[in-house]
């Protein structure tokens, strides 16, 4: 009996063994293809990261020796992709000019220029389409001389405008052959041509004499030729210089600016960059801008100061309210403690994105309920969102509301650990509860609380959601080069530089993010030191 089961198991494992190797092999092949594709596109960083991940994964699941690592690989790999890699990549971007105007890789920008075409004057053809089944058409061209050409039926499908991701706009290549007489059917009406216009713009028609034609008007095709060609090495080309076929000007990539620029006769760069640009390394330029450029440095320092003030005051206020409430709620003699506790935790239980938006509405200058009350009682209507000081006050009020329950929960746990005889002893000495709070409760709480307070400081330092949903950093700082507001924290400031307005300067945003990394890293190290000491 034991032998048979052993045999069956043996057969089973051998089959699964083979299956496993086949699956692993397939994964390896598919991913190798993807990595090669990325590398060719110039995405060296991504290709490398992908290669490392896939290779490690394959090794871990193939090698018997790495059995233990199979348990941690999936988790560690996702952490690597979504925490370690983004951090490292942000630092990398900080040293490049990656931005809305320089978003492509060099290979893609070059490819873009090489795929540009221009129309050759005088070689126009009238075109018409003939239906040939559902969504299939024959393209017919007539030259000025009367020569006629026609294609086989081709599928021309109007892409679904709502399709996600948008349908690819690869050129549709159509070969035409010469004929003598037009087809024996009526061509498509103009209305239909209008409907198909979008697809027709992607059509490249090839005549028997190898000239390429593209649509140039509602009824016309025209001969086109690539606008740029690589300068042959016989004429001194290095493979990088491109020649404009229309004007015969030479352009070459300027690797310092990240743009193709015109070359003069001496081979020096002249004129502005030609869009689209590509991203290149710019060294410490972004960091220098933050530290020395007045249009960036001024707002940066102001925002940095406010970020520190905001985080510090948030910790102080939430801690003050939290400890007082915790001592009250932990007071054995107080009736209804459970209910108080539940109600006091409520602000923490409501999702922050909802309560912050609620406050945004309540603080609204004209329709908000807070100003309604204030105008009835005091006759004032403060502009909470227009005045910098008021906006900052509002942020602190809302953040204290959001944050005190956390401090209260922490303190309640820690208070339980304080031995009651300490209070009894001090009662003997004729102390009162206020002195007890400051001379017993607070000093005992502070030690275990310190790492948590630092964590809370770090959290508020990066309290993106609060600012983004409440004020979006407004009111804006006047005279700033980049979008910057008086209530912006450093994180929302980087977000605005990266994703707001037309500039979209990812490089500068990443440089500031890198500076924040350093500060958060220091806080993290201090915290780990403190926790060590604690144990």
């Amino acid at each position, binding site marked *: 009996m034991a032998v048979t089961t052993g045999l069956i198991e043996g057969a089973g494992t051998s089959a699964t063994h083979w299956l496993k190797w086949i699956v692993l092999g397939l994964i390896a092949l598919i991913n190798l293809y993807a990595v090669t594709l990325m590398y060719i596109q110039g995405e060296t960083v991504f290709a490398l990261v992908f290669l490392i991940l896939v290779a490690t994964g394959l090794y871990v699941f193939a090698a018997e020796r790495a059995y233990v690592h199979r348990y941690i690989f999936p988790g560690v790999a996702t952490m690597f992709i979504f925490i370690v890699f983004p951090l490292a990549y942000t630092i990398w971007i900080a040293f490049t000019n*990656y931005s809305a105007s320089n978003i492509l890789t060099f290979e893609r920008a070059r490819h873009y220029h090489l795929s540009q075409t221009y129309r050759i004057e005088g070689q126009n053809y009238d075109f018409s389409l003939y239906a040939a089944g559902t969504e299939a058409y024959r393209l017919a061209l007539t030259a000025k001389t009367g020569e006629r050409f026609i294609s086989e039926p081709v599928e021309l499908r109007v892409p679904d405008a709502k399709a996600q991701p948008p349908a690819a706009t690869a050129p549709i290549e159509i070969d035409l052959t010469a004929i003598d007489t037009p087809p024996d059917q009526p061509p498509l009406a103009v209305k239909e041509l209008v409907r198909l216009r979008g697809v027709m713009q992607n059509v490249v028609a090839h005549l028997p004499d190898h000239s390429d034609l593209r649509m140039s008007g509602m009824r016309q095709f025209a001969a086109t030729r690539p606008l740029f060609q690589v300068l042959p090495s016989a004429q001194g080309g290095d493979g990088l210089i491109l020649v404009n076929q229309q004007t015969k000007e030479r352009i070459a990539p300027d690797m310092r600016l990240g743009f193709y620029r015109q070359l003069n006769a001496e081979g020096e760069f002249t004129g502005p960059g030609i869009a689209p640009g590509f991203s290149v390394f710019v060294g410490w330029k972004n960091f220098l801008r933050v530290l020395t450029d007045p249009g960036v440095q001024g707002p940066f320092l102001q925002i940095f100061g406010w970020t520190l003030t905001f985080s510090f005051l948030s910790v102080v206020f939430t801690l003050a309210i939290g400890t007082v409430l915790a001592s009250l709620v932990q007071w054995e003699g107080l009736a209804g403690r459970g209910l108080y506790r539940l109600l006091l935790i*409520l602000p923490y239980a409501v999702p922050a994105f909802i309560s912050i938006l609620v406050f945004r509405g309540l603080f609204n200058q004209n329709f908000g309920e807070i100003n309604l009350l204030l105008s009835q009682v005091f006759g004032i209507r403060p502009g909470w969102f227009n005045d910098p000081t008021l906006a900052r006050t509002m942020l602190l009020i809302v953040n204290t509301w959001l944050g005190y329950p956390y401090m209260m929960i922490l303190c309640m746990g820690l208070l339980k650990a304080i031995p009651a005889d300490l209070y009894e002893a001090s009662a003997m000495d004729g102390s009162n509860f206020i002195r007890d709070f400051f001379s017993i409760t607070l000093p005992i709480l502070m030690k275990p609380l310190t790492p948590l307070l630092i964590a809370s400081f770090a959290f508020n330092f990066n309290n993106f959601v609060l600012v983004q949903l409440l004020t979006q950093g407004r009111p804006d700082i006047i005279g700033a080069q980049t979008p910057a507001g008086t209530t912006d924290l450093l994180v929302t400031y980087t977000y605005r530089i990266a994703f707001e307005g037309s500039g979209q300067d990812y490089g500068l945003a990443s440089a500031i993010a890198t500076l924040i990394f350093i500060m958060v890293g220091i806080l993290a190290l201090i915290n780990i030191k403190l926790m060590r000491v604690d144990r």
Partner: protein
Amino acid sequence: MAMVESKSVIYRKLAAHAFLWFFLALIIFPLLMVIAISFRTGNFAVGDIIPSNPTLDHWRLALGMSIIDEAGRTIPPPFPVLLWLWNSVKVAVISAILIVALSTTCAYAFARLRFSGRSLLLKAMLIFQMFPAVLALVAYYALFSRITEYFPPLGLNTHPGLIFAYLGGIALHVWTIKGYFETIDKSLEESAMLDGASPWQAFRLILLPLSVPILAVVFILAFITAITEYPVASILLQDEAKLTLAVGSQYYLNPQEYKWGDFAAAAVMSGLPITLVFLLAQRWLVGGLTAGGVKG
């Protein structure tokens, strides 16, 4: 210390009650206000705490029904709130399940198995989880636009992509579960291994059934984190139909089209379930929330 309560203690208690009720009134005011506003007529009208002529219009719109205004025009719901809520719940549930799966297997290896780089990885995880994702949004955007080019189903503007991004935040959970595993006696698993069980079987059949409570805590924590996450979702999702609640809600308070009443109804409707989940689970959660900071 059994003793008759002195007068001063009674006064102090009264003062404490008075203070707590005053404070609660301040704290709960915004929440009560929103509930009142959701029943008030119109989006601008300012009124009392208890609405004078209550209406269910905002709630109908929040529930996806059209309403007819005084002029007889049909007003369609401004935003698909229920769809957003469904998107949020879908993303949060799936990512919470996957996070539990990933962090449990990781925690098992860290708690029970010996391998090279173990303590280094543990320390690195603790440090890296201190850097919030919001600092690397540019990198996230770049990363996902690359993924979109090579594998659209996991790229920008997809829910699988967002779920995938959320899986990065497991470090704290690994620590929590690892701490729990270490409190469970090893001897059961060891004797099972002696009887020929593989590490996987010992983990799957012995350790896991004993750890259901901590897995539930991690699940709820991951669920709440995902459902309230704003920054990453706001840059990854673009179509209105794909937004999560956290990203979509802010469109109600657009200065050009201020829908205060409609927002209130939508906020109460969608916020209430999440709040209830949190309140019901808070006794277990509090331990998990503070553990990450206290334990090292």
